[in-house]
């Protein structure tokens, strides 16, 4: 005979551990005046290519650095290092997403206060990264024109967790008969009010507009800090 079962009420957020670290990171970034942008997308959507261009274009005026997450290899870090910006690879092994603690560990030895922008490239995956806050100010979701206009409808959770959509590989738009109106409608269906940019890292089209947006975000962020 064993004791009667009874119900114990508790209320515990399963992701509390990650959320606590993410909050700590966000406070640290805020105190140091570093604006943090994370990038999520499916594998091969062009996160590294976009980041390489952005790091190169921002550098004359801004101090930038990047963390890149991948299951294996340091290829992305090597590519990004060509921009001359400080870059660190986070190799996750078999883990399909980055967590706040990995970001925290990767930042050890870096003087965050020396940076205007920190970019965090997540593992290529449109499912798992959506659950994990990394302490970023802005989350970009990338979608390349070759992936199909209905991606937002297929992965509404990640689009919902992001702030801005960036449509990449616009140089291929014509060849794949990319339907801009349809992708716009699909983004708005899952995330009303979400802003989007159309870019090509290869030709440079659309990058200036996107850069202006980023630097305006930084200016607003710095202004909020000083108020």
């Amino acid at each position: 005979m064993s004791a009667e079962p009874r119900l114990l009420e508790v209320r515990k957020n399963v992701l509390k551990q990650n959320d606590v670290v993410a909050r700590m990171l966000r406070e640290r970034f805020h105190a140091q005046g570093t604006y943090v942008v994370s990038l999520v997308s499916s594998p091969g959507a062009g996160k590294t290519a976009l980041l390489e261009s952005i790091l190169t274009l921002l550098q004359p005026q801004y101090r930038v650095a990047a963390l890149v997450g991948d299951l294996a290899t340091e290829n992305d870090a090597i590519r990004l290092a060509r921009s001359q910006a400080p870059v660190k690879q986070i190799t996750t092994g078999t883990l399909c997403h980055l967590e706040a603690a990995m970001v925290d560990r990767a930042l050890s030895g870096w003087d965050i206060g020396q940076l205007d922008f920190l970019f965090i490239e997540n593992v290529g995956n449109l499912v798992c990264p959506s659950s994990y806050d990394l302490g970023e100010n802005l989350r970009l979701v990338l979608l390349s024109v070759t992936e199909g206009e209905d991606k937002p409808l297929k992965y509404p959770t990640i689009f919902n967790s992001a702030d801005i959509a960036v449509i990449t590989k616009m140089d291929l738009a014509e060849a794949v008969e990319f339907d801009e109106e349809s992708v716009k409608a699909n983004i708005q269906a899952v995330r009303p009010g979400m802003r989007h940019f159309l870019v090509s890292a290869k030709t440079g089209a659309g990058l200036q507009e996107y850069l202006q947006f980023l630097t305006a975000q930084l200016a607003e962020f710095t202004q909020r800090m000083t108020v």
Partner: protein
Amino acid sequence: MHELSIAMSIVDMAQEEAEQRDVKIDAVYLELGLLSGVVAEALLFSYEMACIGTRLEGSRLVVKEIPIEVYCPACKTKRILSSMQWFCCPECSTPTSEIIHGKELTITALEVRDECRTAPVGSA
């Protein structure tokens, strides 16, 4: 699939609670929002594996799925979405991204019993 690491977190948290209160856990009750990014079926499968070799081995995970609830600025009231592909008020079709519920990933209760340290007298 990140459900296994989520399941392991659930087991860790429940185990900690069981140790603190000196009880045996029969079931863990979880609220799972449709926008949490976690799939109930995969989580249930992972939970069983995550329990192996812990105090929770043999326990159940009871998942309550929480629908997506938004605030409609036009109707000025809360509405439940019927589809996560259409973030619009189901009554007046006004687009809204003001989410009230649907991101939950919360342990709400534990079904427990006191640990029996010695075999009760007279038990067959």
